[in-house]
């Protein structure tokens, strides 16, 4: 399926030498590169064409690829996903955008009962990507700040990707588009313009299902993803000054979960603390804890701890949201306790 053109795709050409690329721009580059590479890749979503997307991820794509490949839709997430599944059946590789990922709940049936099970039930692959801005910390309130990844990670047949860096966002989105399974691609909106890095000139992919060790350490392991990775790295920096050396793992993909990397780190540090912005109950931290207990119980030198959002809706009030979300201070406090255990 995925044929490599071999020619390095240069994005839209506006990025000069040694430029710092934002998380958002990295996603845009991935979309452009994949649409350049493969004519079967199309985009569908609300305001993605003329307006360029609510966050301007798709700015300029309509001009470049035309209205047949950049499809603006009415405000109906159900219609977007339904159409995308249909397009995938017909041989296209649609990339559907949720204006805010919170609204993906509208499409729960289409995703979990059709997209996820089509290939299993009827032998009909659904190579599609559903992407959209997720996460809190931007005072967006309960309908524009959620992290609904675990609804879908629980559904066999779906892949769930949640990058934390510009490099990974680009490489993972390209891999997601090339994957023959339905992939949900979560873009933490807090990272869109805050995270920048220099990206390679040449084309690259980041494989799905592979976590990354972002920092080596010996005393305990912080496991996180998306915005929480940066929270964890900040906490690790503080803890290092206290003599507590944390290993920091970025899951990058929630499903499939990279157990190998997790277990290797557990074998090394023997203590883990999972940090995520998703609410606590049913979050991936619980799954990780179960995996570690099952496969590496005798590597544990302390309890498996979690720093997560509270089990409440995302509050609108900034002080309450601050209380609700994990932050470096909370991670440091929990990590100290674990290190001392």
């Amino acid at each position, binding site marked *: 399926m995925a044929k490599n053109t071999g020619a390095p795709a240069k994005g839209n050409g506006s990025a000069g030498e040694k430029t710092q690329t934002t998380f958002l721009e990295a996603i845009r580059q991935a979309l452009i590169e994949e649409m350049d590479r493969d004519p079967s890749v199309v985009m569908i979503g609300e305001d993605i064409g003329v307006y360029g997307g609510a966050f301007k991820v798709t700015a300029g794509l309509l001009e470049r690829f035309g209205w047949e490949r950049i499809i603006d839709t009415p405000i109906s997430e159900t219609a977007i996903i339904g159409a995308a599944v249909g397009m995938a059946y017909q041989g296209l590789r649609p990339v559907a955008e949720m204006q805010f990922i919170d609204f993906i709940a509208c499409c729960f049936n289409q995703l979990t009962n059709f997209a996820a099970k089509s290939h299993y039930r009827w032998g009909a692959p659904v190579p599609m990507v559903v992407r959209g801005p997720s996460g809190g910390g931007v005072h967006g309130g309960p309908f524009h700040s959620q992290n609904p990844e675990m609804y879908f990670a629980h559904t066999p047949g779906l892949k769930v990707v949640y990058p934390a860096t510009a490099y990974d966002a680009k490489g993972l989105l390209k891999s997601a588009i090339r994957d023959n399974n339905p992939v949900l691609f979560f873009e933490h909106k807090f990272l869109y313009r805050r995270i920048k890095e220099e990206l390679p000139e040449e084309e690259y992919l980041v494989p799905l299902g592979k976590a990354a060790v972002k920092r080596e350490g010996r005393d305990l392991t912080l496991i996180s993803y998306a915005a929480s990775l940066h929270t964890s790295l900040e906490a690790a920096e503080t803890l290092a000054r206290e003599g507590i050396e944390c290993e920091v793992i970025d899951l990058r993909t929630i499903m499939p979960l990279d157990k190998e990397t997790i277990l290797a780190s557990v074998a090394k540090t*023997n203590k883990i603390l999972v940090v995520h912005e998703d609410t606590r109950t049913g979050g991936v931290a619980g799954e990780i804890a179960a995996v570690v207990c099952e496969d590496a*119980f*005798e*590597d*544990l*030198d*302390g309890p498996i701890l979690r720093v997560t959002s509270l089990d409440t809706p995302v509050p609108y009030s900034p002080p309450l949201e601050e209380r609700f979300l994990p932050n470096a201070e909370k991670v440091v406090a929990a990590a100290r*306790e674990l290190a*001392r*255990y």
Partner: protein
Amino acid sequence: MAVDVIMPQMGESIFEGTITKWLKKPGDKVERDEPLFEISTDKVDAEIPAPAAGVLKEIKVGEGKTVPIQTVVGVIDAAGSASATAGAPAAPVAAPAQVPAGAPKKEEVKATPAKSPAPRAPETRAPAVERASAASASASATAPARVPTAAPGDGRRVHSSPLVRRLARESNIELDSLAESGTGAGGRISKKDIMAAIAAGRVPPAPATSGASGAAAPASAPAKPSAPGVAGAAAHVALENAVPRERIYFGKYEVQPMSVMRQKIAEHMVASKHVSPHVYSIDEADMSKVSAARAKSKDEFENNYGAKLTFMPFFLRAAVEALRAFPTVNASVDGTNVVLHREINIGVAVALENGLIVPVIRNAEEKNFLGLQRAMNDLAERARTKKLKPEEVQESTFAITNPGVFGGLMGLPVINQPNVAILGIGTIQKRAVVIEDAIAIRSMVYLTLSYDHRVVDGAIAHQFMGKLKSVLENWSEPLI
């Protein structure tokens, strides 16, 4: 196996108790946790459950007597103990009879099994003994000197973690021994603590390894290592696979977990080879005089003393003479010190089904010929019937192994630590020997000495062998 019954500590401030009534007589059968005797203390009157099932062998403290806590008040002859099945000499697995210190504090609490179902908490005992001896001098004098009974690595009552317990098990460290040195939250034994203990080479208390120190493989023992246990977890750091595991399992095979004794032998052999640079010297002795003396006195010896006359006391006597002449062979090594033993305690390897044990003939230098023969017969018999006491496989200063029993011409044994030498005796057979310029038929034996070259040099070893040979070839000691 004898299990001591102990006066329990019924409350933290209680240091003595009075036995008001024995509920069983010596010779009575008791079930584990069955009420055994009643006590009265300043705080409570209680029924004390039996620490083990078996037969009440002895009552040491009678009714109406008041004794300090931890005093052994009786002995139960426990049936079917674990150590018997292991085939090792009875390890000092004495289940303490006490109720955990401080558990029943209320007045008139009956310490029935239901209310106090854990009269086997070894961890609680050590602190209890300490407290007792601190507060009452008489208590410490009566505390039996025993090690905690938990199996190595079984640290359920000591706060640790799954990782710590695994490392302890793999390194043969008793977590109890680290109980006081935990640096984790609330005194928990952490990874750091166990790693430090491993680095410091901390080993389990001596009695726990009695099986190991008493075990040495005779050279004739087949050298094929058995497959690891199904779990694949080596019980000791010394027991590493020489090749990757995938190269071990192929074709058709059966996996047999090593018995405890086998593991101890394996550990001991690896450790000995690791620590001691072995050198081997081989000599042969003309046994004609010994054979003749034995043939002549065999029946009379057995009639007079009721003991079979074997070749073993001849070799033991010769070894004693040679060890007297060359004391560096009767030694141990401690770092840069050589420990020259004043006593000559000779361990003799006895083959058992699926293993072996090395009982020790103590003070062999003080025994006459008959004494050596009797000691040998007695130890060998009790080794085979698994009735050796732990101290009877300890404190050897030299060892003898006899591959000749199984027809071996000679064998090169592994040193039985902490000795520095081991003598191997081949089979005694008639051979054509050149004497002067004639060929004669003589009873000959090959003698081999494996020795630790850290302290024993070839010059000493060969002189030692010369002495040994000289005693055997010029045998003059009367046997009767």
